[in-house]
């Protein structure tokens, strides 16, 4: 869109850098790679052309303004939605993620922005939703076992939830988030997708989650894609950052090579470009 309005640039008071689209890149130890993913919802284009890769043991921070397409990308990676076009590779092999179950069976676990917790169910039932322990031969829920495992998993992670048989509706926002993250971390997955794991969190609970991510990184078993809003959190917790903008990846850098200023600059430039595009389209000066 903005490319079509390129002549509008002449109206700018200051030169605005043209839009950058990061093309497909890869590394030898990629666990996940996507190329040229696009997704539309009716008239809305959520993703135009997204390519990214995730190396083994890496924590990739995904940044972007509201509506940039971060959550859509996560929903495609976890099998909840299908892309209109593009390819997804897991461990070097092209795959089609048919459903959440399918993605999960391939080792992709997700913490959604809305947490996907069931308020009416207890903490331990939520921890094991879709991965329940059951008895044999009668497939009754092995609640005792799930309770025990939940307690252990939460203790391992260092999350303090006093009672695990109360419905999660009774817990604080941070505790709920912690359970959603712990549920993912406790699975056998090797790729974790975290959609704003620090939303609804106090400073203390937020650092608890960041500690958990750091710990998972140290263990080196899983690779993580994490959507965050706070640039400081990104620079602290991630190895590499991808900035998604207007449905494309506009930046791909190791966190060591970038800064809060650079990330801010990209967002501001996008805003200026969008404003110019509007001016170009409407042929009238900005107010």
């Amino acid at each position, binding site marked *: 869109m903005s490319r079509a309005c390129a002549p509008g640039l002449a109206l700018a008071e200051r030169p605005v850098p043209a839009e950058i689209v990061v093309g497909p890149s890869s590394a030898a130890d990629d666990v996940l790679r996507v190329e040229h993913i696009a997704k539309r919802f009716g008239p809305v284009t959520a993703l135009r052309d997204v390519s990214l890769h995730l190396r083994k043991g890496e924590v990739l921070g995904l940044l972007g303004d509201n509506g940039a397409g971060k959550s859509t990308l996560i929903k495609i990676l976890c099998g909840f939605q299908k892309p209109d076009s593009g390819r997804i590779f897991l461990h070097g092999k092209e795959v089609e993620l048919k459903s959440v179950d399918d993605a999960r069976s391939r080792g992709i676990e997700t913490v959604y922005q809305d947490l*996907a917790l069931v*308020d*009416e169910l207890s903490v331990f039932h939520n921890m094991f*939703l879709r991965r*329940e322990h*059951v008895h044999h031969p009668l*497939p009754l*829920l092995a609640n005792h076992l799930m309770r025990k495992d939940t307690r252990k998993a939460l203790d391992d992670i260092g999350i303090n939830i006093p009672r695990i048989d109360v419905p999660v509706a009774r817990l604080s926002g941070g505790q709920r988030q912690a359970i959603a993250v712990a549920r993912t971390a406790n699975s056998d997955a090797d790729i974790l997708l975290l959609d704003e794991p620090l939303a609804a969190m106090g400073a203390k609970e937020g650092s608890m989650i960041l500690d958990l991510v750091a710990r998972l990184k140290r263990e080196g078993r899983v690779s993580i894609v994490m959507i965050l809003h706070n640039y400081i959190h990104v620079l602290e917790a991630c190895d590499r950052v991808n900035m998604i903008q207007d449905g494309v990846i506009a930046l791909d850098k190791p966190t060591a090579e970038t800064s809060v200023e650079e990330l801010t600059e990209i967002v501001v430039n996008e805003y200026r470009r969008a404003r110019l595009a509007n001016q170009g389209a409407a042929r009238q000066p900005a107010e």
Partner: protein
Amino acid sequence: MASATGVPASGDPAPATGAQGRRGWSVGQGALGLFKRFLTLREGSIIVVTVIVALYFAASTDTFFTTENFKTLLPYFAPFAILAAGEVFLMINGEIDLSIGAVYLFTPFLFYELHNGGVPLLPGVIIAMIAAAGVGVINGFFTAIIGVNSFITTLGTLFAFEGLTLIISHAQPVATPGAQVTTTTVNVEHVVNGHHIVLPETVNHIGTFARIFGGGTYSELIWALVIIAVLQVLLSRTRWGLYTVAVGSNRLGASEAGVRVRLVIIRNFILCSTCAGLVGILEAVRATSVQPDTAGANAILLEAISAAVIGGTLLAGGSGTVVGALIGALFLGILHDGLVLQGVNANYLALYLGLAIILAMVINTYVARVRTGSGLG
């Protein structure tokens, strides 16, 4: 705590009452706590209300607490318990099935037609039940796959299957196959004033089939209790139940977590319809004939939903109990039976029933508020 050491706590308003008074108070407190805990059970409040109503009728009539009356009471609640139990699953899902009355009506007529066509009794029942389940598939398909609101879908199947019933029955009542009462005359020897005399007596027989499928005095009660037990286990101890709650409480979240929402909804529609079909057969056999009474079928539908709601199942979904549906049905049955025993004018019966239902729900709501407010104490 302070009284245990004999040292009154500072600021204690009545130290003079001593340990005795304190203990009495704490026992009372404990009992109150226990009562509160009981009330926090989802079924707690309706159990209390049901017991109060039962005690009231027991005190106000001589005939309430008798075996005979219990037998009279059974058909007032056992069928509704089964219908409500199935409906509970859908209501927890956040859906509703209005077609259960129609299925209840349709199934015995289908059974009759099958039997006329030469199908033996038991296979006939099984095929009729499969057809009932088929209605559930239709409801589930339009609700979960096509996306029509379940209220509308099942309203459609309600009319459609009531209409189909009228068509295949030609709006005429039929005798339920296998439920015929045969009368035989046997000679019974009596001893009267030392003389042996033999008198002929008539004895009514019903077949084994009829005895099992609703004709026996306790047949419906046993069906109801077994089904309630199985479905309560299904709801609270299996994945089926877990996913049902998950879908009703947070549909998007459940689907994001990988629960196959459509499948969960469809199988609950099937469960609900099958329960309705079974009750249709049981009631037809008990009554030995079936009337193509669509108004009566709709009244039964509403009473079943009332039983589920009174039992503590939320219309909004996410929460409910099968045992509660049984208690809810029992409550309605007792109310109905008790009012009849008291000789309440038949014209007033529906009015009193309605008022009692609202009163019970007010109490239920209040208790629910206590549950979510002060919690488990």
